[in-house]
């Protein structure tokens, strides 16, 4: 019987290429767009960035008449316009962790590293693709949220600022850059921890648990230390006011970028050294 069965023949491959970074970039892009979690996380991130400022603008407008002068003074149009950034960063961070942790939980990392055994190009490509995608998505979102919230507030003729006012354009664009860097930081966390729950926990600990913990310290210590935390340093990218104990936008942004670089460096060293 077996003699009658024709031999299965593998069709030859007419072209042969080698691994190159632009190819790994394309490969990682295919992976990014071909899982549901990407669409969900990015969609939620985009919507939240816009939804919160819109809701806050409506609420502020409708309650403006009953607000005390001190309450009114506490409202800043830029805080309203960028209110979504704090929420959207969670969606972007979760996806950042997942982009690499899911490769470990499903085992696809073995396929990935079989195709690109030098490994590091995979990390660079994931970071580049995700940075580009998150920036391209969140940048329009913060612009929309700025102009939408201003338009809503304009109906009641309150809290008006111009995009060209000093620091405003920087803060709006800074919000998008902050979210992009958060995604990068989270991806590095995922690569270090190699586990979805662990990666998200590590991110949450650094961004949401560490800052309030600082308040148990004496005020002078808190003031001295808090400004150098990743979340506080990064926040300066999109905040308009600067207190005595906060870094400037440039210094804060650079420090946050340095934290990202450090996390990436650790991830890179571990990626090359560890068995998969």
């Amino acid at each position, binding site marked *: 019987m077996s003699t009658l069965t024709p031999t299965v023949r593998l069709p030859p491959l007419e072209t042969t290429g080698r691994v190159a970074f632009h190819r790994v970039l394309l490969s990682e892009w295919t992976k990014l767009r071909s*899982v549901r979690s990407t669409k969900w996380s990015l969609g939620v991130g985009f919507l939240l960035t816009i939804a919160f400022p819109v809701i806050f603008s409506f609420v502020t407008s409708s309650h403006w008449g009953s607000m005390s002068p001190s309450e009114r003074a506490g409202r800043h149009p830029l805080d309203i316009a960028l209110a979504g950034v704090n929420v959207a960063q969670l969606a972007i961070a979760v996806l950042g962790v997942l982009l690499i942790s899911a490769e470990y939980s499903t085992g696809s990392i073995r396929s990935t590293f079989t195709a690109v*055994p030098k490994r590091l190009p995979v990390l660079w490509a994931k970071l580049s693709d995700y940075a580009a995608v998150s920036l391209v998505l969140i940048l329009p979102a913060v612009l929309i949220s700025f102009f939408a919230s201003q338009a809503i507030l304009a109906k009641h003729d309150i809290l008006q600022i111009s995009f060209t006012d000093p620091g405003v354009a920087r803060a709006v664009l800074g919000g998008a850059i902050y979210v992009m860097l958060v995604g990068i930081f989270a991806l590095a966390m995922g690569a270090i921890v190699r586990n979805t729950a662990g990666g998200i926990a590590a991110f949450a600990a650094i961004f949401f648990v560490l800052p309030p913990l600082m308040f148990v310290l004496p005020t002078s210590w808190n003031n001295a230390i808090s400004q150098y935390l990743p979340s506080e340093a990064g926040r300066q990218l999109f905040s308009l006011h600067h207190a005595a104990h906060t870094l400037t936008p440039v210094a804060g942004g650079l420090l946050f970028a340095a934290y990202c670089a450090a996390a990436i460096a650790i991830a890179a060293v571990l990626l090359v050294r560890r068995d998969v």
Partner: protein
Amino acid sequence: MIEASELTKDYGSKRAVDGLSFTVQPGIVTGFLGPNGSGKSTTMRLILGLDAPTDGDVTVNGRHYRDHPAPLHEVGALLESRSVHTGRSAYNHLLALAQTHGIPKHRVTDLIDLVGLHEVARKRTGQFSLGMGQRLGIAQALLGDPKTVMLDEPVNGLDPEGIHWVRNLLKGLAAEGRTVFVSSHLMSEMALTADHLIVIGRGKLIADTSVDDFVARASQKVVIVRSPELERLRAELAGPGVSFAEAGRGALEVHGLTAEQVGNAAAGAGIVLHELTPQQASLEEAFMNLTRDELEFAADMEEAVA
């Protein structure tokens, strides 16, 4: 060509691969045999550079896997453990791998057709059966038209038709001059597919030999003999190291003598024989005999140490 020398891998205090040296030659199917947990999958991960060896070295087509500029053209591998994102479709999984080497899209669809996954190519692989997962893994292994094909338990979960298909595929790949290295814990499968065998137990090399030699070496001397005068024959053959088992219908299974020895003894006593058949141990039995020795030896050693 795969060349391993003194390959060793420890996981913590457990030694998974222990000083393995072997060469897998092109042009033939080499079976990689061993009980579950004997270190086959670990060895394959070491070959692919997924795990780093504790000691020793392994190269594929003359270089470390990691140093090949186009690894998918050198080695196509099917790993035993699942290595596909369950949320991604088969098509996108293969496409992403192909793109790292600039392999065109139509190659992806060609291979999906070749392994018979056309109908489900756009479905998420999390919904795949074990057999479909194996077919996807085989498509992945062949994507880069590799010189060396390395498959870990490829027939696991396949139906008889699929098993037959894989067998033909492997023979065809070897006939084209490729190196084909296939692991299995099923000896019967290797008997039908492999030309050469590398057998390991507890991470150590037990045998590196052709299938025929392997069976011959591990076979015990067993002869089936049929005669109208069985009782006389039995008395004639009896001696130290010789035992008998009833084989039914006037036949006797003689252990410990060759067919020549039985024939000569019968002729000398003038006993008529109706059948004289040397029994080959099946590959399965041969394997069990060899690995049992290995396991018993290891157990004895542990007792001695304790």
